[in-house]
């Protein structure tokens, strides 16, 4: 009897020691067998979100959870580094040299190490530096099908990442150096590029690409083949690799070869039923900081917003982020769920044509200013956006995303408050000063978008009071008409922001002749500022330059911003917590590892 008691005590101590030793290592606080469902409005279709056609939120939301990366955006939004995946450092600014290092112990879900081979392949794909020069894929693209023809040369390297040789990794034309321990690569940019932090996105498993493209069995051999091919610029091997990279990761249901869905992030895909759902299960090989708390998350594809609301009500999903409509807002208000209003990355704005406009009136700054004064921005938000989102506000900056660093300060000094209220008298005075009566303003917008049609009507009524004759230049093909000389006077549409990178926003839009400069805006001072912004590495200095840009735009009567697109997120607070949507992609999914199930008996 005594011996038995002693044995019991010893066992208890041993068990305690085991538990304690277990605590020393980072441990997943997963709730065993827990599962959650979340609705998304579009089916997943490609595991490679870097191709020109695979880059969609439906894919990126999933790969965000399954593929580790060096950084991500949180809900502020600001860029957060994930040092448990790897680190990067700016070795020198000019020439721009960046060193990326994968953290120790980071593995793919098949146990293979994540290392420089994966980064090197990602560079080759996103830079297209090794692509066969001057090769025009369209010559060998079947005009009937859009696919490559059989006589597509087998030694042609073509990564379909849509890379541009003048921005991002396109500027890294020399092959990066791989360190001896195969853990890091060092990239040298041909010219400075300030958004270097955002360029090397989550890598795909290089050994899987090599195994499938080159018919290799062994994982290590496959990695070596990647090094060989890229470092020696072996066109034949790279041709096969690029072809597999372009199309091998596209599937519409769970692939038989589960290598194709290898994960390096907190979750991995374990099931994918065509057009129904993707099941993400906690990745047992994941050892990083973002340890998941829910064992299994199912992303169900529900296109119809109201269907998503009712699925939430019926407990089939616990978290939804449907398109924000008045119906959805009303339906959600009646339920016992938590609703979070928020913003999407797209913002609505009106640009005035500085030149080449239909009537030519807007070449005169007085008329531009007069028109900006009569645009009923607050009324548009009150009538069209508030029914969807009670706390919606007018966006007052051309450059900063609401909530991001710099927005509030810039709004305070950029002069946008002059257009907060409609000023009919002021506009009349300006028109009198300009010496025009009843100027015609033809507005270009999407004729298939009812909200824009309503905005147009509100603008038309308000502007008429000051004597503007606002006419309808809308078209279903409005996107193609943007920037067409002589087609319209003002345009009403939305710009999408996908990152806080400074090179995406001001330089292409406000520089004379920029790709997104569709209103023939030209100001030498602005050109200098956008050029300076493209060379400024210090984030604080970037914000200072952007504030100046914002102010000049308002001072030049560039046009007005109206509102940030509303987003709505709703969840069952009795089933899930720690939901905090972000404005930037991947919106609700950014902290998927923090989602926590609420136990049923807590009710």
């Amino acid at each position, binding site marked *: 009897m005594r011996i038995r008691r002693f044995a019991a005590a010893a066992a208890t101590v041993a068990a305690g020691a085991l538990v304690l030793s277990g605590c020393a290592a980072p441990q997943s606080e997963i709730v065993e067998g827990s*599962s959650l469902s979340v609705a998304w409005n579009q*089916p997943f*279709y*490609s595991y490679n979100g870097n191709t*020109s*056609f*695979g*880059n*969609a939120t439906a894919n990126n939301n999933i790969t965000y959870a399954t593929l580790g990366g060096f950084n991500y955006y949180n809900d502020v939004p600001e860029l957060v580094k994930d040092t448990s995946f790897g680190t990067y450092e700016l070795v020198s600014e000019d020439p721009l040299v960046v060193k990326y290092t994968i953290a120790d112990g980071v593995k793919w879900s098949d146990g293979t190490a994540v290392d420089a081979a994966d980064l090197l392949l990602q560079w080759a794909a996103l830079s297209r530096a090794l692509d066969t020069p001057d090769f025009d894929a369209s010559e060998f*693209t*079947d*005009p*009937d*099908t*859009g*696919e490559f023809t*059989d006589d597509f040369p087998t030694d042609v390297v073509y990564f*379909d990442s*849509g*890379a*541009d040789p003048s921005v*991002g990794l396109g500027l890294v034309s020399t092959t990066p150096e791989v360190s001896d321990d195969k853990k890091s690569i060092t990239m040298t940019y041909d010219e400075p590029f300030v958004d270097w932090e955002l360029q090397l996105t989550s890598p795909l498993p290089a050994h899987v690409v090599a195994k499938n493209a080159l018919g290799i069995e062994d994982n290590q051999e496959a990695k070596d083949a990647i090094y060989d091919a890229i470092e020696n610029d072996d066109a034949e091997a790279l041709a096969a690799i690029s072809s597999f990279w372009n*199309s091998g990761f*596209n599937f*519409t*249901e769970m692939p038989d070869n589960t290598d194709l869905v290898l994960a390096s992030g907190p979750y991995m895909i374990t099931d994918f*039923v*065509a*057009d*129904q*759902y993707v099941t993400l299960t906690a990745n047992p090989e994941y050892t990083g900081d973002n340890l998941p708390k829910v064992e299994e998350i*199912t992303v*169900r*594809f*529900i*296109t*119809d917003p*109201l*269907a998503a609301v*009712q699925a939430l009500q*019926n*407990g*089939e999903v616990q978290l939804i982020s449907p398109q924000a409509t008045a119906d959805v807002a009303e339906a959600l208000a009646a339920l016992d769920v938590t609703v979070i209003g928020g913003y999407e990355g*797209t913002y609505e704005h009106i640009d005035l044509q500085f030149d080449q406009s239909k009537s030519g009136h807007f070449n005169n700054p007085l008329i531009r200013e007069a028109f900006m004064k009569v645009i009923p921005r607050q009324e548009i938000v009150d009538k069209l956006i508030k029914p969807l989102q009670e706390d919606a506000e007018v966006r007052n900056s051309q450059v900063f995303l609401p909530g991001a660093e710099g927005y509030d300060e810039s709004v305070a000094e950029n002069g946008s408050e002059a257009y907060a209220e409609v000023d009919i008298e002021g506009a009349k005075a300006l028109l009198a000063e300009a010496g025009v009566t009843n100027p015609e303003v033809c507005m270009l917008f*999407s004729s298939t978008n009812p909200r824009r049609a309503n905005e147009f009507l509100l603008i038309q009524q308000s502007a008429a009071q000051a004597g503007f004759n606002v006419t309808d230049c809308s078209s*279903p*093909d*409005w*996107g*193609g008409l*943007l920037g067409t000389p002589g087609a319209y006077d003002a345009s009403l549409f939305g*710009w*999408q*922001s*996908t990152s806080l*990178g400074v*090179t*995406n926003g001001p330089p*292409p839009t406000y520089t004379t002749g920029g*790709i997104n400069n569709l209103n023939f805006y030209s100001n030498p001072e602005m050109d200098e500022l956008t050029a300076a912004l493209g060379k400024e590495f210090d984030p604080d200095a970037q914000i200072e330059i952007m504030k100046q840009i914002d102010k000049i735009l308002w001072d030049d009567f560039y046009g007005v911003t109206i509102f940030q697109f509303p987003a709505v997120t709703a969840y069952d607070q009795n089933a899930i917590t720690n939901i905090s949507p972000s404005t930037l992609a991947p919106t609700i999914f950014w902290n998927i590892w923090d989602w926590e199930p609420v136990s049923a008996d807590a009710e």
Partner: protein
Amino acid sequence: MATFVVRRLIASIFIFIAATYLMYILVALSGDPLEDLRTSSAPNKQQLIEARTALLNLDVPPPLRYFIWLGGIFGLTGKGFGYLGVTVQNQPVNVLLGQAMGSTLQLVTLATVVAIILGIVVGITTALRQYSGYDYGVTFLSFLFFSLPIFWVAVLLKQYLAIGFNDFLRDPAIPWWLIVILALISGVIWMSIIPRKGIQRLYTFLIAAVATAALLVYMELTDWFSNPHIGIVGIVLSAAGVAFGVTAISTGLRQRRALRASIIVAAIGIAMYYPFMLFISYYLTFWTWVGLGVLAVAVSFAIGWFTGGADKAPVARTAAITGFLVAALISLDRFMSVWNAYANSSRIKGRPIATIGSSTPGLEGSLWVMGVDFFTHLLLPTIALILISFASYTRYSRASLLEVMNQDYIRTARAKGLTERTVVVRHAFRNALIPIATIVAFDIGGIVGGAVITERVFGWTGMGALFQNGLDHVDPNPVMAFFLVVGGLAILFNLIADLVYAGLDPRIRVS
């Protein structure tokens, strides 16, 4: 006949090609396929626009692009015959079409079959009880359903049949006043269906009301909704009911051999109840279950055949129908037996009726559990589809039977002393089915494409989603795949309808 078919087919093909041309142009001109890229602030915007232009040949104007697409269909592009191109997401349309067809057929097949059977049965009975309360009631309801928009019906169904019923299941107690109301409603319904006069109507009313109330109280007391079952007593009673009912309609109760065969079949079914429930059913897969059903029908048929004496065929038919229905009842009870385990599983969490999708993600289980899962997902969309197509079937079959019942040959049949059953089933019903057969043919052609909204609302990604996503992205290839299938079926079944009509009605010749 042959020349008629060939002539029709040739004309159809030309009409069809013209229609596809029109459709393609309309879709291609419905918007700007590059719209999302044009408003993007991505730095490689120009490259992305070029990539998509190359992928979908957007540099070729739509009227010419159509011929590129048509060339793909006829295999001129080296991709094989019937190549439908890729979507804007670079997915092969042929693969998507296959998946979409499978999903849609799953959704609409059952709904169509049930709607046809139910519609014809109700239509026939209303015609036989013309101008009764039942007739007026059904007329009112069918027009009501017909005029309801399906997206709205779907939302209501989800709210009350799914969310409401699931809430009810948490504590399945039926309040007494609801029992009284349901009993009264049931009494009124039965009173108007069963043709009686005077005081006898009151008896019908009372019997129906009391029976309904008793059933509800029994369900309430045995917690039936949490733990549904038919049970051996229920099986015995309903098998007996089936045996008599089927015989009465199929041959008439005076056909003693048929009645005897049906009762034997029902008795065998009852004898198989426990072995099936406790043993056999645990070893079944879907196909062995179907095989067992076929075996049950075959055995029943044989019993009828060998005990049928001079009337082998009708007796065997009666026995086979009885066998099928009894087997179905026992299977139903088996499905019910897993309901409680299903509803309380960790995947369902006590809310069994689903509002979206075709299956519960991650659920694994026996044939019976998966069957129940299929049922809970199919229930709402099927009801929604039935409600709207119900009206046309009831109205057509009612009108058709009424017309036939006024024919001279019906009067002749009555005059020579045939029973009412023989007159209705053998002389009137068969002839009334002729016009309905053509409508059914049309509908089968239309089912594949006819559920666009239903699919969207219930999260079934099938042909409707293919069509709608294509339109949203101004991407003609998936829309054309949808149109080819739906349009092709419409043309084919139109032709079949004409031929069926000619085949069934000897007064009509096609030439």
